């Protein structure tokens, strides 16, 4: 449901790093090296980054600049990583977070 901007009327075509592969909950996705993990996920149509601890509610990108900490996920095994300011690297393992750990499939409503 989201896509990348091919050509911008003011900014033209934006320079991106090289294309890399990463996994999102085990699925192979592609993105560009150095762009925030959240952007690569957004481009792939991923909306839900985590489920909260108390109410088990979905959360995604909110501020996109590392303040609100809503977009945190488990990245390479480390929980609470702010994906909106974490640069994407080849082979990253990105997982939906539930509470403060990686979500199991039953955590998802």
């Amino acid at each position: 449901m989201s896509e990348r901007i091919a050509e911008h009327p003011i900014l033209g075509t934006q320079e991106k790093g090289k294309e890399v592969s990463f996994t999102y909950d085990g699925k192979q996705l592609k993105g560009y090296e150095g762009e925030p993990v959240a952007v690569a996920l957004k481009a792939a149509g991923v909306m839900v980054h985590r489920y909260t601890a108390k109410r088990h509610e979905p959360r995604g990108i909110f501020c996109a600049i590392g303040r609100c900490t809503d977009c945190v996920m488990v990245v390479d095994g480390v929980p609470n990583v702010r994906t909106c300011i974490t640069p994407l690297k080849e082979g990253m393992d990105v997982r939906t977070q539930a509470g403060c750990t990686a979500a199991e499939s039953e955590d998802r409503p």
Partner: protein
Amino acid sequence: MKRYDLIIVGAGPAGLSAAIEAAKRGIKTVVFDENSRPGGQLFKQIHKFFGSKEHRAKIRGYVIGGQLLDEARKSGVEVILDATVIGLYQDREVVVKLGEAIHHFKGNAVIVATGASENMINFPGWTLPGVIGAGAAQTMLNLHGVLPGKRVLMLGSGNVGLVVSFQLMQCGCEVAAIVDAAPRVGGYGVHASKVARTGVPFYLSHTIVKAEGYDHVTGVTIAEVDEHFSFIPGTEKHFDVDTICLAVGLSPMSQLLKMAGCKMSDDPKKGGQVPICDTYGRTSLSGIFAAGDVSAIEEASSAMIEGRMAGVCAAEYLGYIDEEEEKKELAELDDALNGLRQGMFAPGNRGKAIEKTEEGIDISKNLLKNGFVAEDEIERYPGVTHREGIHPVIECTQNIPCNPCQDACRQGCISIGDKITSLPIVTKDSKCTGCGMCVASCSGQAIFLVNEDCGDGSATVTLPYEFLPLPEEGSKGIGLGRDGKKVCDAEVVSVRSLDVYDKTNLLTMRVPKEYAMKARFFRKA
């Protein structure tokens, strides 16, 4: 411990401007910024700035960012990125996270220019993925080239809400509505008008009832509010959207100054908790200065001047210039800042409902309520005149500090006069050549070239056009009124994209002559 003469926190417009002022006087200056790109919000601002030449008017924000960065580097400023300042401790000690370690630095002086953070507002469903800050939309669009969504509802009609709505459309998103609980549009009328004429409806005195969706936004319901901001039952309106953007103001990000022990005050007029400081950014602590949004929410243009002021003060504090020179420099900067802090949106007018322009003309009520000037209102402004042949029509109806149009016309058709906030007028005996420089130079996209009667029953209207794809010559479509509704059929005569227009394309459309003063946007059939 490593010591700098001057440590600046934040490489936005204020921080970089301060650094340039300091470094060009030989001060060893370092700027830390937590982001991987310098420039702060400038790099997300793709519209042309207001003001006059000295304020870098009609230059796009991201270009100004690049200019500042170049100047900083040339004057020997060390700009360190991905450098998160985690604390401002006693004795002006700045602790910075760099890579995988923390570093301790001392500054003989410290300028804090950390900017602002977005305010948020809560309603049922506000935590759903798809509800985002307007800043988030801007970051995704302009820094990372990804769409936040396809169909967006914008909450907030201040300049941020209006500008970001326009940016969303420039990237191909549809803006379903602009909603604001206030009864009047908060931002510049020209920003509202350029959005409204593309067909975006404004809902003033409305706010969000709830965001809808299961695990992300699929819709939103808004409703009208009364003067106590309570919902009026029966006024609910539903929109299918995938994104809700919140643009409800900014708060100074002043935590570092508070941690350092600066005296603070809570000032709603300045946007929240700010350090108590003098006009030039001197805080209650010796050697610690504040500049830009961190000390009061304003525009990036003012932040640049405030940054320079803080840089000058720091230079005097550090003994690089004497008091006399400081006084002289600050007086000049005072003038520049005062030039910006004028007009109906000046900081002193915040919250006031202004009814008349400085010229004594009634402000358009429709503009404040619906985002565009109504047909029966537009003729009363001095930029809107009728001439034979091609001539500029300047739909500038509010007093804002901005004058590039005056210099844009080589024929001297346009005059603002000495007072930068005055409404532009079309001079009497001027000879318009139709060059279009005025259209491209108007930061508010409020100038049109009109030939009201081409002699064959048609008229031509030239309008600023910053969307893709560009319509081709001869393509048929419709002319939209200021309200974004169809008024007539239209055909594209030409699309001019000169370098001097700086990416504002000039689209000329032919319309039946009775629509010369009505059609203000083109949409391809």
